[in-house]
Structures are given as structure tokens and as C-alpha cells.
């Protein structure tokens, strides 16, 4: 199977998962809170008289383990749904092959 990982802005977590379910029928995702740094500028922080730049902005990291056949469509669905129209920070997604996918409850291989 294939693992599709995506970094998206936190407001889009639900939207992206909805899009994947609607457009590919895939159900199953694991989400982790993340902070990230990319092309976008970060935030200027001020604390007690010290000004400093932090390159990080809040993001979420999503992992979908999907059928090989679905991979492309999942990626497409994510990329669409993650696009906010903002100037920066929408993130990226990618795929990687995975093997030995086991479903704990049933022990069956997927």
C-alpha cells in the first residue's frame, strides 16, 4: 500500500479529510500537531523588550495509508482541499510505499 503524508494549515485538517473521503472513499487517517517552516515568512515575536523572528507556524501532519490505486487521487484531493488562497503556508504532500500493513484488531494484512 501507499502512505500519503500531508502538511496542512490546522484550519484545514477537517476539510482535507472530508475531501479525501468524498473524492476517493478512503477512510482512515492519523493526525499529528506540527509546526513548520517553508517558503513563507514566520512570525515576528516580541517578548519583554526582545524582538525576534520565529520561522515556525502551526501546521498539522496527516498520514493516510491507502491502496496503491488510490494514491494519486488522494494526493490530488489533498492538494485541492489544502489550498487556502493565502500567500504562503499551505504546505506540501507526498507519498511513499509501505508494506506489511497490519490491522491490529483483526490481525489481518491489508
Amino acid at each position, binding site marked *: 500500500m501507499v502512505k500519503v503524508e500531508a502538511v496542512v494549515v490546522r*484550519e484545514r485538517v477537517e476539510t482535507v479529510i472530508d475531501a479525501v473521503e468524498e473524492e476517493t472513499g478512503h477512510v482512515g487517517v492519523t493526525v499529528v500537531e506540527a*509546526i513548520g517552516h517553508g517558503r513563507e515568512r514566520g*512570525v*515576528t*515575536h516580541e*517578548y519583554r523588550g526582545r*524582538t525576534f523572528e520565529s520561522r515556525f507556524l502551526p501546521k498539522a501532519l496527516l498520514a493516510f495509508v491507502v491502496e496503491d490505486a488510490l494514491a494519486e487521487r488522494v494526493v490530488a484531493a489533498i492538494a485541492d482541499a489544502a489550498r487556502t488562497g493565502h500567500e504562503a503556508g499551505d504546505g506540501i504532500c507526498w507519498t511513499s510505499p509501505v508494506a506489511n500493513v497490519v490491522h491490529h484488531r483483526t490481525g489481518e494484512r491489508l
Partner: protein
Amino acid sequence: MTHNQLLIAANTIWVVVAAVLVMFMQAGFAFLEAGLTRMKNAAHIAGKNVLIFGVASLVYWLVGFGLAFGNGNGLVGLHGFAPSVDELLAVGKAPYAAFTSIPGAAGWLFEVVFAGVSLAIVWGAMAERAKLWVYFAFGAIFTVVYSLVSHWIWAPGGWLQRFGMQDFAGSTVVHYQGALAALAGALLLGPRIGKFGHDGRANAIPGHNMPYAVLGTLILWFGWFGFNPGSTLGVVTGGHVGFFGYVALTTNLAAAAGGIGGICVAWVVLRKPDVSMMLNGVLAALVAITAACGFVSPWAAVLIGFVAAMVAVVAVPLVERLGIDDPIGAVAVHGLAGVWGTLATGLFALPALAATVGVGRGGLLYTGSPYQLGVQALGLVAVGAFTFTASFGSLWALNRLWGIRVEPHVETAGLDVAEHGMWGYPEFYIPVPGGYGTESHGHLGLAHAHATIPVPEPRLAPAADAA
């Protein structure tokens, strides 16, 4: 010392202690509201209470106290602005003759904390989207509006006071007024991004910290023992020594009934014993009993509290259904419960206690006469018209002139980082281990030592030192 001086001393102790308890309610609002809003706005929401109490204090010193309690006519006080030391030390003398047996300074202290509470209520409904300068501008405006209305109802000779309107500690003056401005603000600001889906259905935006909300509520309950019993302004009321103890009892019974009512009604109506609704129930009950606390019997206090909780639990979702985004429920909890409390006093006021307090008459239930109820209603209408108009008008103007709502990207990022430059919980958003550049000075003494010894392994410490 004369008897009278001792009495003044006792009155002043009680009033000052009560005022201090009410001042602490700012911490209650700060935590109730921070708890019921999102993490990204936590510092802003909590911190705003420090800011607005500062604004209220300065404005109330300059003009508010004079407008409210300075000698004047039925509409407004005309003396006692930026009072002098002598005016503040004098007891029962112009311009503060209103305070017959405490020094003017004690009167000011007790009244300024009330102004602060009323202003604190305003921001509950405007939470998470108002610009910072609005707290300054509208804070000052509202403090003046508040002062005028408190003159009508509480100052000797105030026009509603002359009708005998019964608002013992301010269901109308403090809570209803605050809620009216809150409503105006919520309407003008519009809902928070994401509050309503495109189907128009309201979405839940859970607050980030229920324990904070609980702490805030318990602090408010605590402070309310200054709010209501302190409004006796002394230790003797209509010949009853320690009447404020009785006021504290009705206050506590109402709050208790409100808490039980809130959680039970939520359990039945919303099918979950929602903790935040239990808290709203307590607050709604306290708001409602605020007008009635000195006028009603214990069982009426229980009833008033329970009904107030029902009102709150039912009204919070209703307000949302009207498309109004009120994150804390100020309109329901302070507004509607305030109306209920004010009217309930007109229903349940005991003639004997009305006489003791020396304001108005017995309620409909006992006298059969609708007079008192009518007066209460008149007050609600008059205050409602005036305060809502004044608040809406001034906020509308501020909005047209400079815009009172933050930019969407600021709202999305959160007010803490976008307006104040730092997250409320920095370590949740940026790595703050040893401070920026911790390792970058790895070649200076201390940090070098640091760089050559083991990570946290208490048991290796000796070895480490050796290194």
C-alpha cells in the same frame, strides 16, 4: 471615639472588604472567559481584564463617580469630578452626601469595582475578534453610560430611584447594562470566522480550558459575597444589625440552586450534564438574585436562582440561533437573567424587607399590586433603550471610522501572536528549550560545561560533575 465614629469605622471596614472582593471578580471574568475561548487568544482574553479595569478606574475617578453619585438632579450628578482629598475623607458631606456613613473614598472604591464588573461583561460577547484599541475607547464610553444609569437607580433622587425601583446590587444597573452593550458589540462585530457554516448552522467552538472556567466561576461566586451583601453599604440596614449576613444567605442559596439547575436542565434538555452550563447556571442565578437579594425570602431566592439557570441554559443556544455569536453567553447569562431577576423582585419582594431596605414596596405576590412590577419593567425599558442605543451608536461610529474588528488573518492567527507579539502558551507553538541560540554560544564557559555533560540523568550527576 463616639458611637457614631465606631459605626462609621465598622461600615467602612465592611464596605472596603466587600469592594476588594468585587475587584477580584476581574480575575473571575478573566479566567471564565479565557477558559471558554481558544488557546490562541488566551493571553489577550485574560489580560483584557487588567486593561479594562484600568480604564474604568481612571474614567470613574475623572468623571464617572461624579456623574453617578455627585450631588445633582434626577438625571445626572453634577459635582465631585476628580475629587479632592478632603471630599474623599469626608463622611456624608457634599458632593458625596449620598454616602451617609462611610467616607467618600470608600464609596468611590465600592462603586468603581462595580463599574469594572459591568464593563467586564461587555467583552464576553465581543471576545476573540475586537481590536485592542476598542477596549480603551469603548471602555471609556461605556463607563460614562454606566455611571448615568447608576445615578438614575441608585443615587438619592435619581428618577428611577424616586419611583422606588428595586435593584439591590445591580441586576439591571450592572449586569443587564453590560449585556446590552455586549449585544450591541456582538451584532456589530459579527460572528467569529467559522462560527456559522454556510448552511447557517451554528458550529461549536469549544473553549480551551474548562478548569479555568470553573476557577473563574468560583472566583465570581466568591466575589459576589462582596457584590450583594456589600450593597448594604453598612452594617445596619433599617434597624437590622448585620442584615448583610442575610443578603449573603439569599445570594448563596440562589447560586446553589443555579448550579444544580444548570447541570440538571442541561442534562435533560441538551442530554448532557454540560459543565459549562452548570457554570453558566451559577452565574445566571447570581445575576438574577443581585436585584432581589435584599428583598426576598430564602425559598424565593432558590426559585429565582433555579429559573435563572433554566433561562441561561435555554437562551444560550437560542441567541446563537438568531445568528449572534456570544462566546461566553453574556447576553443570556447577564442580560436575560438580569431581566428575570429585576422582574422577579417585583414579584417576590417581601413588604417587610422592602421597608427594611427602604426602597419600593412589596411585590405582586404579596401585595397583589402590580405597582412594583411595573416600576421594575419601566426601569428595564428605560435602561434598555438608553444603554443599547448609546452603546450601539458609539460602537457603530467607531466601526465606521476605524473598524472595530481585527483582520481575518489576525483572527485566524490568534490575537496573542498577531496583536501582542507572543503566544499565550509559547511552548505550544515555538521551541523554547533554553531560549533561542541556546547551543549557539556553546563555546562559552557554562554552556560548554553543559555541552560536555550528560542529559538529564540525575543518577549520573556525580559522574557528570567529574566530567
